[in-house]
């Protein structure tokens, strides 16, 4: 067994020990996880972004167009002192402005317009019989929207529609919770398989 598997096995057991109660062994494993994750992300980001996209092309290949992003990046550090805090507003403005500019059309198109057109489906199939899935989609969309319509009191037809919408929401939450349980179980099963197979060699 290699040293990596032994360390991974011991750390898995250390994390699982929390299920009994909080303890120093768990704390050690938890801090190690946080530290290693941040350290790894920093190193990867430094190499991929800072070195490959900025410092090497700028100082190694003389691409002086990168001076501007470098300056904007350095201005961000103004936030660390009250007197220079205002300097950081310039790169933040660039970041927010460009981010919003890119995001607004992307949100409107794929997230709203295409999804709305995707929910417009024929209610009658090619064989002349009702298409029940299309009807469920229509009722689900309209009743859920009715639930989130707060400009009028939920009474009469609007009240009925919003109550139906509540049922659709509950079914959605239930499905999502079911999938969440499945996901968490999968995580535990994955670690159990690692412990039984690679660490303890009890299964193949």
């Amino acid at each position, binding site marked *: 067994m290699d040293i990596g598997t032994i360390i991974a096995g011991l750390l898995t057991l250390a994390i699982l020990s929390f299920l*009994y109660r909080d303890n120093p062994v768990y704390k050690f494993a938890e801090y190690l996880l946080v530290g290693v994750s941040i350290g*790894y992300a920093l190193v990867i980001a430094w190499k991929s972004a800072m070195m*490959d996209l900025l410092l090497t092309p700028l100082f190694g290949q003389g691409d002086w167009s990168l001076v501007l992003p470098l300056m904007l990046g350095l201005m961000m550090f103004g936030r660390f002192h009250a007197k220079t805090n205002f300097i950081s507003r310039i790169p933040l403005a660039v970041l927010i402005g460009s981010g919003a500019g890119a995001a607004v059309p*992307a949100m409107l198109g*794929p997230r709203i317009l295409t999804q709305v057109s*995707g929910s417009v489906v024929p209610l009658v199939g090619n064989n002349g019989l009702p298409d029940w899935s299309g009807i469920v989609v229509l009722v689900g969309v309209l009743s859920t929207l009715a639930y989130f319509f707060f400009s009028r009191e939920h009474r009469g037809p609007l009240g009925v529609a919003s109550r139906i919408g509540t049922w659709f929401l509950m079914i959605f939450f239930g499905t999502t919770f079911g999938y969440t349980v499945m996901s968490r179980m*999968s995580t535990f099963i994955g670690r*159990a*398989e690692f412990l039984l197979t690679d660490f303890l060699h*009890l299964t193949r």
Partner: protein
Amino acid sequence: MKKLESRHWAFLGLAVVVVATMLLNFEPKLDISPEAKRMHSFIDSLPAGSIVMVSFDHEASALPEIKPLALAFLRHAFSKGHRLVGIALMAEGTAVGYRLMDQAAAEYNKRYGVDYAFLGFQPQIIAAILSMGESIKQTFPRDYSGHEYDSLPMLREIRKLSDISAVVSIADGNLATHWIEYGRARFNVTVAAFVTAVMVTSYDPYVSSGQLRAMVGGLRGAAEYEKLIGIGGAGRRAMLAQAASHLYVLALILVGNVIYFASRARKGRG
């Protein structure tokens, strides 16, 4: 020593159920869902030699679900002769993606730089996708191992996202939506996704509207995909444990409710 509480017994019971079913080493019967068939047909439908970008958009904590999903897809893609370009839009996905691609490539005798390449990580997801739409070489001047972009033969014919046949996002969060909102909407690239079970309901509407070409989710999805491509894997091995653990949770919910209503009735009488 601390006295064991009810939650300790619940955890212990789950551990017993999972370990016992895994030691049985038995694979239950598995029906293939339309979602898994759809993804399989999509990958099959791409002509051999197609360039597919695999984006490892996940954290290391999702590995128990992500690894079987990713390996099933990579094995299928390599077996069909597709050429794969790996990237990571989350830092922790970088090492995982590199190792998984290397593992699957070795199984099919694929050569690095000719049949597959791994470009590594870029921060700022949206900026990275938009930048790849203009030039992948400018976004990743070097691959993960430090090779110059143009030094790898397969990368010379890939200039931007529109040269890619499809992007497959392997995600444990909402990063695949960025591929839909920026990659597909702006550069018309086909997007498919392998996701953790917890994300399935978030992506289902995108599959229904056709924005996500296909989606496979969770360990169950991995098991179905493994069956479709005719190989064994962690997904299929885990199915009995998964089914047993779900039954165990259902039993706990039932018992909890019975105890609750019984105690309420007793209080009412008292």
